[in-house]
């Protein structure tokens, strides 16, 4: 039994694909330029206070020797924060949200919740999870990233 467990644990490192994740935190600062255009900058995350916007960048890298398929990244919206509408990005991916703790996922325009007995479209503040379904295989040695922004309550 113990031997089998050890083999299972070793399997991903030995062959095939091995996708590693790294999450980075940024402070999202909005600046207005001379033309009155609002620009977003992702800066070092220091001195984050309520009301600030925080950007998460999740890098994924295939450190294995074969391609990884059916790649799905799932990230709960952290406690004490709210998802910022339309902030999730991810190349070559379908972005879906959950408003029930990660059980059901749907695109933003198809995610409904019950409110006072009525079915209503979930708002950004209702989201509990965001996930990215990557459309293509991730070849060995390749990497990519997805991102989203929350606001600290």
């Amino acid at each position, binding site marked *: 039994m113990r031997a089998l467990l050890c083999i299972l644990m070793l399997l991903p490192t030995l062959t095939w694909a091995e996708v590693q994740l790294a*999450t980075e935190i940024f402070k999202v600062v909005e600046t207005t330029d001379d033309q009155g255009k609002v620009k977003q900058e992702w800066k070092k995350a220091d001195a984050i206070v309520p009301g600030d916007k925080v950007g*998460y960048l999740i890098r994924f890298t295939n450190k294995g020797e074969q391609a990884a398929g059916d790649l799905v990244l799932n990230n709960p919206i952290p406690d004490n924060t709210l998802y910022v509408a339309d902030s999730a990005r991810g190349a070559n991916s379908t972005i879906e949200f959950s408003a029930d703790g990660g059980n059901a996922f749907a695109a933003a325009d198809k995610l409904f919740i019950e409110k006072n007995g009525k079915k209503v479209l979930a708002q950004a503040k209702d989201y509990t999870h965001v996930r990215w379904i990557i459309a293509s295989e991730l070849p060995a040695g390749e990497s990519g990233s997805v991102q989203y922004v929350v606001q600290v309550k």
Partner: protein
Amino acid sequence: MKYSCKPWLRTSLLSSLAFAFILPQTSLAAGTAAGTPVQNQATVSYSTGGGTVSDVSNRAEFVVQELINASLVVQHTGDVIVNSPDPEAPIKLVLTNTGNGDEAFSLTQTNVTGSDDFDVTIGSFYVDDGDGVFEPGTEDALYAGAELAPDASVTLWAVSAIPDSLADNATGDVVIKALSATFQTAGQTNPQPGDFVAGAGTSSTNAVAGTTGAQQQQTVTYRVSAIAVAITKAVTASRDLLGQGGSQYVPGAEVDYRITVSVTGTGTATDVSVSDPLPDELLLKNTTNGTITVGGVVMSAKAKAIDGDDAYYDANTNTLSVDLGDMNSGDSVDIDFTTVIQ
């Protein structure tokens, strides 16, 4: 067997865990409490030759820093009406910690020079004991700059002395300022939004000046009001009821009186009340069943507790009373009633 939980213990552990998840999070107007760690961990699943695999990212964490904000609201609409002189003219204020950590605030008052008519002698700040009545030194203690929890408020009295011999309507402006004690201690007496004091916040977070710049100030105007309430009383008619339309003051004769109350000066005289103890030789006609006319409105002389109106007569003390409420400068009210000579 040694490590397995007893079934009842397992159940109680599970239920307490479930409870922890449904507990409502502390929600403050001021936002997430300073020192709260916010953690984020992504998961990935993918298919590979060996099947479906999942893995997690590092646990990315930041700690919410202390945001220092305050609100200072003057509890007066318009100017604060004072007398000249007035040794203790109070301004009522509410100071609220709108930040997300415990914070003390230091308060100051300064005279505004140039734009007004007089300077006050700056006094102290007192903390209201909860009744909203200014009672310096007795009920209301001197403000000592106690820490306020996030969202907590304190009602304060800023006190100054108004000089003597000022003209009616003269104004004196003072600026009342609340400054974060953290910034003051750090020598930053004029912090701007985004300025911070490293490590000086709750749970050793940075203390960051919020949108109010960790300070708040209000300018309040004192206005001298030489408000005066004048009262006059006169006989307007008498009837001896002896059949010839005479007006002799004889026992049984009716005497009509008019009391006129008028307000001059500036501002409002609050809770004006008139009391007229009649001499033993006179009684109100029909006593408590009689009437008192206030500003042309006929009111029953019954006790206030009985009829609720503002005019009443006490047969025991033979006193007639009228509550006129607040009267503005320029207001004048006539009170008419009829007495009978005993």
